[in-house]
């Protein structure tokens, strides 16, 4: 597993890092075509390497709530609640539709920054992606 993905220190975050298996990003291909397919990861070699990151939506919480990823990472949210949720950028950069149980939504973060998001159906549910 790549150590280039500095997740937050919560144990569940590390589990997310393990399940979100990294892929080698081939130069010239969009990261969105490459990330998070579950293939075994190769050792990181260059700065172009990108790891997929996975976030679970469970019991009305984004878990982990804060994730730090390198530029180019595709983050995938999966709803594990029976109640639908959305993943909606506070700055309106992206939004999923209502995700039913088992459905996923992905977004690739191409620029550094701090991105907050929430669930439109339950706006008290919030999360943050820090892209470095």
């Amino acid at each position, binding site marked *: 597993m790549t150590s280039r993905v500095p997740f937050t220190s919560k144990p569940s975050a590390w589990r997310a890092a393990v399940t979100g298996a990294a892929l080698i990003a081939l130069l010239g291909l969009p990261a969105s075509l490459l990330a998070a397919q579950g293939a075994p990861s190769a050792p990181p070699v260059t700065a172009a390497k990108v790891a997929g990151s996975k976030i679970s939506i469970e*019991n*009305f919480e984004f878990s982990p709530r804060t994730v730090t990823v390198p530029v180019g990472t595709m983050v995938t949210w999966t709803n594990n*609640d*029976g*109640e*639908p949720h*959305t993943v909606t950028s506070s700055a309106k950069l992206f939004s999923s*539709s*209502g995700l*039913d*149980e088992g459905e996923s939504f992905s977004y690739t973060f191409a620029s550094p920054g701090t991105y907050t998001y929430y669930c*439109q*159906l*339950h*706006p*008290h549910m919030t999360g943050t992606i820090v892209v470095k």
Partner: protein
Amino acid sequence: VTEWHSPHKEDNMAEPTIDTHDDQSTDHPSEDGIDRRGFLECMAWAGTGVLLTVSGGVLSSRTLAHAAGAPPEGDFSFVQISDSHIGFSAEPNRDVTATLQQAIGKINALQSVPEFVLHTGDLSHSQKPGAFDTLAENLKSLKARQVFYVPGEHDVFADGGKEYLNRFGGGTKGKGWQSFDYKGVRFVGLVNVLTFKESRLGSLGPEQLDWLKQDLGGLSGSTPVVVFAHVPLWAVYPQWGWATGDGEQALALLRRFGSVTVLNGHIHQVMQKVEGNMTFHTAMSTAFPQPPPGGAPSPGPWKQVPEDRVKSMLGLTQVNYVERKSPLAIIDSTLA
């Protein structure tokens, strides 16, 4: 956030048992001096799916089997349905259109044809494409002359209510609130799902509260008032968002009336209480039940319900109005 707490202990509502009595209330008589023991019984679904609660002889809630044998009663009746969640297709109900149709069938089979139907929101399941069409198409088979709607959060979250208002907001004010008079009763539909913001509670907002104040302003205190809205106006279980943050401001405007009936949805189960001259009632869903407050890690479809019992937890609410007799008689019917 202002949370309104009734004098009785809300947690008593949480037990999924039959005849959950309010043992706390007798120790603390309310400000209006009414002993709540006789007035208040929390209702919960029962093992057989039968709901049966009589409170002080003024509120009744019966299974359809009981209601069907009784002669029509009152000057007129109307029906509340709620939380149809068209587009939902998972456990414990993979065909919510079929159960909506069953509810419609039950309504059409009532001995006294209801004058109209109130739908208290969540017509759609997270605004799934085509859901509003399916709902509208199915409700056309109702014998009742008209359906009045208020939105649930599932109907408005994605577009701020644009499509909902275009489809179902005819004749409403502001962002979907409305009032109308029927045979001397003032009906008020409120929208409390548009501004959840950072809170998990429903919210009416100052614009709507101003309108409500004006709308009720000219009414005599003897006018019966029926308020319908999606999220409960009373604090059923704020931990799960089953409350309206500024609901108390609306209730304060209603307290001077001699008979107020508040009909809500959202929580997919029947609960009711009487507070002074106000009766609060939540309706079952036509689509799927939710767990009792605190009965699961989080709210949502209650999947653990055995298949043969699901329909006992779905249903509709019939309300009979009898002039000079208050409050209104409320009858819950399951689809079982």
